[in-house]
């Protein structure tokens, strides 16, 4: 363990902890943009500079390992001025076209700009440098005018997804983030997991499906409906509609990770094909024999449908015996629902003919 002083507070942290994390442990927030706890430290944006006794110049706390008896100051007028300067430089390369980005006009960059009382109007670039929506990926919106080259997308793709779609190209003033060999994301073997979007602090990468839908009213944490990993995700809800899916570092199984289906495969929920009314075949209502192909559908109310179902099931049971019925429950449904089906088959029908697609 290493003991050091941050803003006068004595902090004890394990070796190889960064000053930034040590400050966090002490409840001190240091502004950052390029840093994220899930990602390899980068030390690029320089917003997190602190003063360290023995060093002539401010040090980037996100990349500085603690050392014994270090004395750190995280905020003072000189550092505030330095941060303001960094933000002004970043903003001088940042251009907002003014479209509704679904972030409610806020992102991490703008948050800190506001925190340090920067006049956005004056500080922002006066013209765009890149085409907006420059990648055809159906899920990821790319607007490099908002990119501050923090490389969180690059590191997210590498450190979280293990896919290496994004990288930096060129250098100096011409440095930019590109997909693959300057191709489209999909051509660069992007799996559209959206990790890059999840980690982007400026909205340069954004969720295309959610772009003009505004901010969510609330977020509901739930478990993904696709594979057996059981990822936790946040359904962002507005006007009783899911407008976005986000991930959260707190999720026990997956953290910020999600796959393309989990993050973007949610629009089936609102698909017009959804069944919204019980339907029964007309012949059942008419009490006539079943026509070939079972005949036409009739939309009915629940009572009709439920009564009919119950009547047909009990009739079948009573005529052919309990074991003439088969119950297929579902690996997509809740535990509670599957339990009820098991109870239904065994208690109500009296059969063990219950199965689901575990084998398929």
């Amino acid at each position, binding site marked *: 363990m290493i003991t050091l002083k941050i803003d006068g507070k004595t902090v004890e942290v394990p070796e190889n902890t960064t000053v930034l994390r040590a400050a966090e442990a002490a409840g001190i927030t240091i502004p950052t943009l390029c840093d994220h706890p899930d990602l390899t430290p980068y030390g690029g944006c320089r917003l997190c500079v602190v003063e360290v006794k023995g060093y002539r110049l401010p040090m980037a706390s996100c990349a500085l390992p603690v050392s014994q008896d270090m004395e750190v100051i995280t905020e003072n007028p000189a550092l505030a001025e330095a941060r303001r300067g960094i933000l002004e430089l970043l903003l001088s390369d940042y251009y907002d076209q003014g479209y509704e980005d679904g972030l409610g006009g806020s992102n991490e960059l703008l948050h800190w700009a506001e925190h340090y009382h920067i006049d956005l109007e004056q500080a922002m670039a006066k013209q765009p440098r890149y085409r907006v929506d420059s990648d055809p990926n159906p899920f990821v919106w790319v607007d490099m005018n908002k990119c501050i080259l923090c490389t969180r997308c690059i590191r997210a793709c590498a450190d979280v997804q*293990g896919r*290496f*779609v994004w*990288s930096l190209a060129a250098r100096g003033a011409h440095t930019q983030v*590109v*997909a693959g*060999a*300057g191709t489209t994301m999909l051509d*660069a073997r992007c799996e559209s997991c959206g990790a890059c979007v999840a980690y982007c602090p400026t909205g340069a990468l954004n969720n295309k499906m959610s772009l003009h839908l505004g901010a969510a009213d609330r977020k509901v944490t739930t478990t993904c409906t696709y594979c057996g990993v059981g990822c936790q995700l946040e359904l962002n809800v507005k006007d009783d509609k899911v407008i976005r899916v986000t991930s959260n570092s707190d999720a026990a199984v997956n953290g910020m990770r999600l796959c393309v289906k989990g993050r973007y495969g949610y629009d089936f929920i609102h698909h017009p094909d959804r069944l919204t009314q019980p339907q029964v075949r007309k012949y059942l209502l008419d009490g006539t024999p079943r026509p070939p192909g079972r005949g036409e559908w009739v939309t009915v109310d629940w009572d009709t449908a439920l009564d009919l179902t119950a009547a047909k099931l009990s009739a079948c049971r009573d005529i052919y015996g309990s074991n003439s019925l088969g119950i297929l429950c579902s690996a997509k449904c809740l535990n509670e629902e599957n339990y009820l089906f098991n109870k239904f088959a065994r208690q109500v029908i009296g059969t063990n003919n219950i199965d689901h697609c575990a084998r398929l």
Partner: protein
Amino acid sequence: MSAHTTDNGYKEMARLAIEKHGTSPDALIPILLEVNQEYGYIPVKALTEIKKHLNAPVGDRLIQEGHLFSLASFYHMLSLKARGRHIVLFCESAPCHVTGGRAVWQALQEQLSLSAGETSPDGKWSLVTTSCLGACGVGPVVVIDEDMYGNVTPERLPEILSRYE
């Protein structure tokens, strides 16, 4: 060059370069330099071929075209754009600048009818600026292909350029 720019050509080139330099990470830039030398630039197809040979995690990364592209666009001796038959390198650093480089640069652009980074339509010349080549004692310096010319003046240029077909 055309024989090389077939898919098989790229494959063969990638194989040879890997054979020579290996697949460890420190071989990446030497491999790219080799390709650049072979083609005068680095075709994206060649990156794909190289990548195929490197497809095992290298340290904390899996080498994809993107990383190779990133390297190729970072290092100035590597080009991602096709170049002309002759590459004219002009040193634009301060030492050459104060000894008359500006005039030479003007003259070069005029005589080749090219701006920085351009290739002539007939594919003969590419004009490229470079930072210091370490021959400041004889600046201004122009390099054409492998030949370095020191103490260049606008007046000397036509004779120098005429040496190239």
